């Protein structure tokens, strides 16, 4: 069934990493529409005879099926001189885009899903943090998030209490900032950009902007793919796959403040793709 969610149709979506584009056409799916990506000096995206708008941002080719796209959200760190931008992986997951975003925002699962990497028992507490919908731009921000991590990044050598900031600037994209092991005063950036193939299947594109001059690309990718490989079986065992927006569908706790804000924000936007809208 084609997507009828006008909010979702008008968004920009990543459809491939730029480095994966060759002269051979690529076939992929976006909101149930089959896309063909061709490269002939410039990249073009076609669906069912239509040519779609394109843009190249953050190492990916983005397109949209709608008619009135807004600008893509900014990640100012991407253009900082001393950062390394790495496309870590594109991984298919049998879940909805919003379930995937919630997992990206969640700290409570670190000791259980990313055991001895992003968390370890007994350090299980999710301390109070702040969540707000930014007044300058329409995005959710969770700040002052602290979590004890045994090995926060590929470049880490020991456990540390790590500071996180999360941004959700797009219904299906999120960006996190965390203490950089190489440069304690600054923050590394990790972004997840979701390409919803259907309501219950996504391709997750992961991008990093790191302050790390020593770790190889291969090591960085392996680290990130290990993390995502641990999340994938959990995400694929969540039921229902679409994110329920009814506040009484599941049982949130204080640690889920950012997820509660995200569900409300999606409700207010009127997003229906990849969610189960609240009946009321």
């Amino acid at each position, binding site marked *: 069934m084609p997507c009828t969610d006008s909010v979702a149709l008008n968004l920009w979506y990543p459809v491939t990493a730029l480095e994966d584009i060759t002269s051979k056409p690529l076939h992929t799916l976006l909101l149930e529409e089959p896309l063909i990506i061709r490269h002939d000096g410039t990249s073009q995206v076609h669906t069912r005879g239509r040519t779609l708008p394109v843009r190249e941002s953050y190492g990916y080719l983005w397109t949209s099926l709608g008619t009135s796209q807004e600008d893509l959200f900014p990640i100012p760190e991407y253009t900082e001189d001393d950062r390394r931008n790495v496309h870590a992986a594109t991984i298919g997951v049998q879940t909805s885009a919003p379930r995937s975003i*919630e997992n990206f925002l969640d*700290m*409570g*699962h670190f*000791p*259980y*899903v990313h055991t001895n990497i992003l968390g370890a*028992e*007994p*350090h*299980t*507490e*999710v301390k109070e943090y702040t969540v707000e919908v930014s007044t300058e731009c329409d995005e959710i921000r969770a700040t002052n998030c602290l979590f004890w991590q045994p090995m926060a990044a590929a470049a880490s050598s020991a456990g540390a209490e790590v500071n996180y900031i999360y941004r959700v600037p797009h219904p299906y994209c999120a960006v996190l900032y965390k203490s950089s092991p190489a440069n304690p005063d600054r923050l590394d950036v990790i972004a997840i950009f979701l390409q919803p193939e259907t309501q219950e299947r996504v391709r997750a594109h992961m991008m990093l902007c790191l302050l790390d001059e020593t770790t190889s690309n291969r090591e960085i990718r392996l680290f990130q793919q290990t993390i995502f490989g641990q999340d994938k*079986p*959990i995400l694929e*065992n*969540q*039921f*229902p796959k679409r994110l*329920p927006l*009814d*506040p*009484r*569908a*599941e*049982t*949130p*706790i*204080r*640690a889920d403040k950012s997820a509660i804000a995200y569900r409300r924000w999606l409700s207010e936007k009127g997003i229906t793709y990849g969610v189960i809208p609240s009946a009321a």
Partner: protein
Amino acid sequence: MLHSLYQQWFPIASSTDLVPRHVYQAQLLGREFAVWRADDGYVNVWENRCLHRGVRLSIGINDGRELKCQYHGWRYTNRTAGCTYIPAHPADAPARTICNNTYPAQEAHGLIWAGEEANGPLPDLGAHANGIVLRPIPVHAPAEMVETTLQSYDQDILFFVQPCDSDHCIIRGIAKPNDDRTVLLRQHSFALGELRDQVEAHAALVEAPARYKPVIARVAEDFIDIPTLTKEGRTADLPVTITAKDIIAKGIARLRLEPLKCALPTFQPGAHVDVHLQNGLVRQYSLTNGPGETDHYTIGVKLEPDSRGGSSTIHALNLGDNLAISVPRNNFPLRRDAVETILIAGGIGMTPLLSMARALNVQGLPFAFHYFVQSDAHIAFRQEIGTFADAATIHKGLSPEDTSTKLSEILAEPGPARHVYICGPGPMLDTAREIAGRTGWSDTQIHFEYFKNNTQRNTSGSFKIELARSAMTLTVPEGTSILNVLHENGINMSSSCELGACGTCRCTVIAGEIDHQDVYLTDSEKAAGNAMMTCVSRARSDRLILDI
């Protein structure tokens, strides 16, 4: 039609599927179940999703007593499916009512039987009772189609078809007890395999029926935000009967309480119940149970020499006597994120700490259990303590001075991730409090439970209370507690000991100066001045604004 299927019992697994520490995934009428056997033999049939974030519980961990969700480590207990621990908030006791959906289940004739709303007796198996359970055969065809085909099969086999969903099912057969078990199993495994091919070929020709859409129950409105306050005064909701009573140490009786009707609610380590006695007295006793022990509560009661009718009445009770108790309340929750947990028990104060130690022991978390007793004859719950091995130390017959020295040793090194729980007689707690203050333990790491409040209480002076959320102003006269005034005016506020010791009637204070007279709040909580115990504490100012 679906409604009548909901009322029926269906086999959903073989008994042999439920091996120790395994979680088996089953499906009936479109709904997935997580099926697991606890170490005490009880078979749990739960909806296959954690009510926190919907992750399948069949990928969770069965530790023999509780089922742990893979995603966030939430623990759900044997039998009740109540949540006992939420690791993201280690200092909180989860609301008792956070509970997974459970379904009626029975084990009989080598099969596990369940149903959405099954009631009534299981089908009568006649000569097939306790027969040989055939290998289950999954079939990709509607259950009715399979049932029709089975009518022409060997009449000596009794068949039950489990409708997993509208388009697939499982054939479960029982043969009469027979000496040639192996031959029989092989023969039917082969014949039913042939039958399956035949039915599936037929089913492929017709349109598959629409899948069942089992409704996922909405969670209670209270859960939208936690923690929730249970709004109830002292109630005796649970009738129980005494099924075992023995004297386990000098002056200490152990009572096993089993429910007279329905199941007992979920408890957490550190929880207590109010016991309502026939003479009208109400007394609090901590539960000593280990995790997953949910078919009974065990309490330990010391006969007090100056008993005013509480402990002496309980000691006089007999097997088969009935009592009314409250639901368990937990104002002494156990964190499980400590690098080391130190439990310090004095005399009968060991009971809540015993339950904590049993939980830590089962989970393999590091702890030390220090038990101060008058003499060897006073050691209660020896068998349970024996399972703690080296983690338990018993200190016998120490003088007050020696006790103080020993406490100083135990409390010598405060550490950021060490937590101390202490329960015992007032003077011992006061000594421990003084030592902990001197050695630099913070209030947040040392947790006290008093049995009673020995401080001299002052009920003089009248003042006003303004109830911010109820928009009411009430006067608290001399000699009456805030709690009594609330109850007289129809405001619900839970309470238990009503002596300022248990922490149940805690209330947030928005403005006004508090005259703290309890032993529950820590010194820093008292100094912060934004919470009070309404059963004993009063106002220093003429007015308090309460968040009620």
